[in-house]
Each structure stands twice: as C-alpha cells, then as structure tokens.
C-alpha cells in the first residue's frame, strides 16, 4: 500500500498532478461566489425563516393578534409567553403581555403555522445578534415595531368577506375578537 507511487510510474503521477492543477486553473478568472458580507448582502428568499414578528393590520395599524394562544401551545421551546386575562365583564381577552425569548426560539416556524389570524410571522430579517442575553427578550411593542414593514398575505380578510361559507367556530369568533387587540395594544 505504501508503494503506490512506485507502482504507478512517475509519469502517470505527474500527469495526475497536472490534471488537478488544470481543474484549479479553470477557476482562476472566475468571479467569486462569495459576498463581502457586511457591505453586500444576499437577498433572502421570501420564505426565509428569520426573526419572529407580530404583524399589524394593513389599514389601521393595530395588532392582528387575538390572544388565542395557539402559537404559545405550538411552540416546541416555550419561547412565547402570552398573558391575556379575560375581562370579567365582557369575557374578552385582553393582551397584557406577549414576549418572545429569542434565546430559546429555534426558528422552527410552528407558531406561524398555528396562527389562524395572520398575526405572527417569521420575517426574512436576521442580524439581531447581541452580546447581552437580556436583549433577546422582545416585548409586544418591539415585536410589532420590527414587524411593521413586513409584507404578508392577510388570510383573515377573506374570511370576513365571506363569513357565511363554512363557518367554523374559530372563524365566527374572529371578527368579534378583533377590537380586543386594539385595547390590548393601548393598555
């Protein structure tokens, strides 16, 4: 096994080495496929799963979230904490606290899938690293602020336009619940 070079003959070896060099030299004049990162950036594909944000209504700018807590239950790492006590009189939920701890979040996207109200999304933004652990805990205002310019397809609107088709309990409740988020946001 150690005598490989001897058996093959020196000319064959030299030829093999040169064929390797030829392949390398083919790449000499080519453009690099890498980017100079902080100055240049890749454009992220639309489905790219970056930071989790809360989406706001496209018209009145209020949060779409109805505090249904589905995302909290779907989250495998318990990164989402929602506190929304029911109003004892109106029996409606009041969004008091919505926090995501990005130190826990694994960017799996299950929260986005669980939400029926187009209220939470993994945006294509990245670059929110920090040396401070506490700064990973984002509250509702920050989540909403970062999500303001995130484009999304509002699936709620369709349900509002045609509420009579296939009314499931979740759908019928959605228009009633909507005003609650605005209250929640103001409080």
């Amino acid at each position: 096994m150690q005598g490989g070079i001897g058996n093959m003959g020196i000319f064959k070896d030299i030829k093999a080495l040169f064929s390797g060099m030829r392949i390398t030299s083919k790449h000499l004049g080519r453009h690099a496929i890498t980017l100079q990162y902080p100055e240049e950036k890749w454009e992220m594909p639309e489905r790219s799963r970056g930071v989790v944000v809360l989406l706001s209504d496209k018209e009145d700018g209020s949060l779409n979230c109805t505090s249904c807590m589905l995302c909290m239950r779907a989250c495998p790492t318990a990164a989402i904490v929602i506190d929304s006590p029911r109003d004892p009189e109106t029996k409606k939920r009041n969004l008091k606290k919505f926090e995501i701890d990005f130190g826990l979040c694994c960017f799996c996207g299950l929260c986005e899938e669980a939400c029926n109200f187009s209220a939470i999304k993994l945006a294509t933004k990245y670059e929110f690293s920090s040396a401070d652990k506490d700064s990973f805990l984002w509250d509702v205002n920050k989540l909403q602020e970062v999500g303001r310019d995130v484009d999304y397809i509002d699936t709620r609107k369709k349900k509002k336009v045609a509420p009579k088709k296939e009314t499931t309990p979740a759908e019928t409740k959605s228009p009633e619940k909507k005003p609650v988020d605005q209250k929640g946001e103001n409080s």
Partner: protein
Amino acid sequence: MSDLRTEEYYLNMGPHHPSTHGVCRMVLKMDGEKVKEIEPHIGYLHRSIEKICENRTYAQCIPILDRFEYVTAMSCNYVFALAAERLASIEVPERAEHIRVIMLELNRIASHLLFYGVTAMDIGALTPFLYGLRERESILDLFEMTCGQRLTYNYIRVGGVSRDLPNGFIPKCHEALNTIEKKLADYEGLLNENPIWLVRTVGIGVLPAKVALDYGVSGPCLRASGVQYDLRRNDPYSIYDRFEFDIPVRHNGDCYDRYLLRLDEIRQSIHIVRQALDALPEGDFKAKVSPNFKPPAGEVYARIENSRGELGVHVISDGTKKPLRVKTRGASYNHIAVLPAFATDVLLADLVAIFATMDVIMPEVDR
C-alpha cells in the same frame, strides 16, 4: 541501538480535534506512530433529544429531531413523520411523497458533497473542500427557498410537507443537478488519480464485510465492503420502489472505495431526483392532520436509508398526544463502535483518513 527501551503510551485524540467532526475523544494506545488500540469516548454532545421528545407533541418533535443529525435533517424529519404515520395509519398524498423523495435525495447529495470536501480536507487537500461546499450551496439555496432554512429544515410533517414547492423550484432544481453532474468530473479529476490521495486512501482501513455486518455498519461504509444492502431496496419506504436506480457496491472496503462509492451515489441520487421531478403529480401537499393528533397506543420502528446508513426511530405511543418513548438509531454510532475492531495497526495519520471516510457525525452518536 538494540538496548533502546521502547514502551507503549497513551494518546488522547480529541475531544476538540478538527478531524473528529464534532466532539469525540479517542484514547489511543500507541506504539511509536502505530495505533495499537482505540477506545472511543462519546457523550460530549449529548443533548437529550430522546427525552425532550417525550415532552413534546408529535408535531413539536420534528424541529427537535432536526438537531439529531443536522447534516441530513430532512431524513430526521422524514423518519419521525414516517413512524407517526405508521402509528396513526395516515395516508400521505402522492404529491407529498414525491416532494419528500426529492428533498431526501437532494439532502443525500448535499451530505455526500460535504463528505467529499471534509474528507479531502482531513487528509490534507484544501481545494476539494471549497468545491464541494460551493455545489452544496446550490442545494441549500433550494432548501431555503422551499422551507426557509438551510440546515434545520422542519419541512417534512406528519402527513405530508409543510409547504408546497415554491414557484421556480423545478427549473432551479434541474439547473443545480446539471451543474453538480458536470462538476462531478472535476471532483474526480482532482482526487481520483492524485498520487498523494491514492497513497493516503488505497488499501488503508480495510473493513471486512463480516466485521461490518457484526457491528451493524450500514450505508455506504457497508456497501463499500461488498455487501449490497440499501433500505431503499431492502425495506422500501415512501415511493422508492417506483424509481429506477442502482445501488452502487464496491468490494475492497478501504478508504478509497468508501470515497468512490459516495460519488457514485451522488449520480444515482441525481437520477432519482430527476425522475421524481418529472413524475411530480398535482394535488395536496399535506393530509389533514390536527397538530395535536393522538395516535392509538402501540409502537413502531421506522427506518430509512440516509446518507450515512440506517437511520431509525422507535416510537411508543400510549394514546396521548405526546409519545411515551422515542428511541433514535443513528448509523454513526455503529461506525464509531466498529473502529476498534478494524482500525488498529495503522498510522495515526491514517486513522484520521479512516475516521473521515466512515463519515461519522457526532451529534448522531450522542443525540
């Protein structure tokens, strides 16, 4: 010189050794440059994935299992989904099955390309690493446009896949396959006849078929030793029985054969992906499965062939929405276990080559 006293000594290789592909410590009994005994110490990367899965619903287990074997996370997604589907007898739509095959095979190609680069780098050639990773990038781009992530996909779901293929996926995929196919000639030109590469790999670390079978070695390492065993054929899952492909086999069982076999497999995988893309039917990409579905009590072992070998998961259900027990099986565990049986009496530098061509990945061993 004859009265020179020599003695054997112990050498610690790792845990933080660049060629251990993760964190593996090997205690080597050395006689000069020769390795006499190997004792692998594992557990440095233990993340308790199996236990974590016991406290998650079936849907939530999938992103956790992404971290089980992160180089081919699609297979980890898939094998768990397969187990859950068998438990709950869920029918998967045709389109979803095709998408899954496309993703699994693309992931196999990506993993083998990484193998190509990393192995060459371990043995001392840097250029192949850059080439291998460049082509792998085109596959990761495809994954990113489909599911949004490049490494931890969380794409394959119980009952299908999380999203349909995006617009423009099919032409882009064909383009990537064509490039990779063309570049394979470059890869082979760089290494196949390179005298240094040959001296470092040919006849080094011969794994006899019997030892391989005794230790439960699977995947390319087993096939390079002359055993034709591939779960895609021997225990067909998904729709692999519909596609035409060869199972490459080589007979010497040395590092060189293990390397060549993986390049052969890339060609076969390209062939499968093309067939699946052409046969892709219209229809649903996911069966209707509630995120909190409760499979009936029972247990199932699902296994698939991933780029390293047999990847299995044993799920026991007690009829609640969370599995009672999840046991994972990764091929790398056996690939480490077999090292003391055949990789002795080799030079220390050759042990690196053997370890690299066994394509061990530590998170799969320690889970």
